[in-house]
């Protein structure tokens, strides 16, 4: 299984090809910290998106706050545009239970009312617990619950997927 995880760059290229025809003048790309922001940065560059990149830290919206408390390193969310009427492309690295995406959508609506939200993920690993599915997935897998897929970034900016 470990050896079969593909390189990240071709996956992002594939995502970009699928997303490109759906872009509108009102599309804004929003990455979810931390891995989602890395993928969103790449997509933002490849797709020549004229509007600035948004970043979301969903720590204040997690549904497990009362169990595990506040994430030790909360980064401020940064949405440098008005959300009203925008078409949002929400980007995360790995889709698992769907709870992060739910929290992200809750947070987005606290900033305004977008016209639409679509979801792009690098990897849909299965194990969904909510009715949330990606509109675009670079890779679709069925990973057992006890295993985790992680996206990491090397010092040179290179992105790699690992299964543990």
């Amino acid at each position, binding site marked *: 299984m470990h050896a079969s995880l593909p390189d990240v760059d071709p996956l992002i290229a594939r995502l970009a090809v699928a997303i490109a025809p759906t872009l509108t003048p009102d599309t804004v790309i929003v990455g979810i910290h931390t891995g989602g922001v890395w993928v969103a940065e790449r997509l933002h560059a490849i797709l020549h998106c004229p509007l600035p990149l948004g970043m979301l830290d969903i720590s*204040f919206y997690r549904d497990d*706050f*009362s169990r*595990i*408390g*506040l994430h030790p390193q*909360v980064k*401020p*969310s940064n949405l440098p545009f008005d959300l009203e009427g925008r078409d949002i492309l929400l980007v995360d690295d790995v889709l698992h239970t769907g709870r992060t995406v739910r929290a992200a959508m809750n947070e987005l609506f606290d*900033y305004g009312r977008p016209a639409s939200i679509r979801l792009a993920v690098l990897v849909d690993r299965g194990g969904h617990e909510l009715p949330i599915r990606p509109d675009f997935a670079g890779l679709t897998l069925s990973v057992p619950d006890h295993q985790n897929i992680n996206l990491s970034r090397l010092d040179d900016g290179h992105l790699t997927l690992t299964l543990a």
Partner: protein
Amino acid sequence: MNLQLTEDGRLRHLLTLDGLPRAILTQILDTAESFMDVGEREVKKVPLLRGKSIFNLFFEPSTRTRTTFEIAAKRLSADVVNLNIATSSQTKGEAILDTVDNLAAMHADMFIVRHAQSGAAHFIARHVAPHISVVNAGDGRHAHPTQGLLDMFTIRRFKGEFHNLTVAIVGDVLHSRVARSQIHALTTLGVPEVRVIGPKTLLPTGVEQMGVKVFHDMEAGLAGCDVVIMLRLQNERMKGALLPSAQEYFKFFGLTLEKLALAKPDAIVMHPGPMNRGVEIDSEVADGPQSVILPQVTYGIAVRMAVMALLAGGTTA
């Protein structure tokens, strides 16, 4: 055993900054930083404390502190109940615990406590059930930890670092719980020189043991300061004639533009409020370009949000 921390070192109650490790202070300041933008959003709320009940127990009057605690709790989506309780002087101890038990029976999750008697918040914290947190919002002359934290947050925002600063605290240190909390926080965060400036009658004996330099005149004390913190002259706590008159106090210890010129040109001026204009601070300074007194109030919301979020999170494991 430290009443304020859990066994694994997380914040359990916030009662005093004395003895809190630097890592916890920094964690609170960092968390407050991430709450700063919530006030700018269309919906000025995050859902962290949804379903939690927070009781503001104010046995002593307060406007700023109670209001900013209330706004902070509401921005975290908590339900807030404000209780302004006049105290009887003798049976305080019993009366407090009765009040607390009754509110706990209403499923309180957190108490924000202000009391004229030092140690009141500790007293309640020792008494409450394990799932309830207590925040000291000022107890007697002892401590006012969230004010101390918001002052540190203000200093960090305007000065960036702590390790290269000279900070002066001016005025009625004797009666000031704010000064005590500030001194503990400043020394813990690594400020190399903390000064207190005031007349002998308004400085506690042995204040040097808290790690501060003592000055009795403004000229020497303010020289080279990066941060000047003015304290309110606490007339209502003043017992006996510690001062000749407010006019004479202003002459020697009131912060005027002339005296402020002795500090560094980019020094900031802070005041925990409420101000006695013309007693400890001149209006020209309070409303002037070096004053950060109103930003302190705004930052108080984010800092109190951080404290409540850190206390309430991870409690139902």
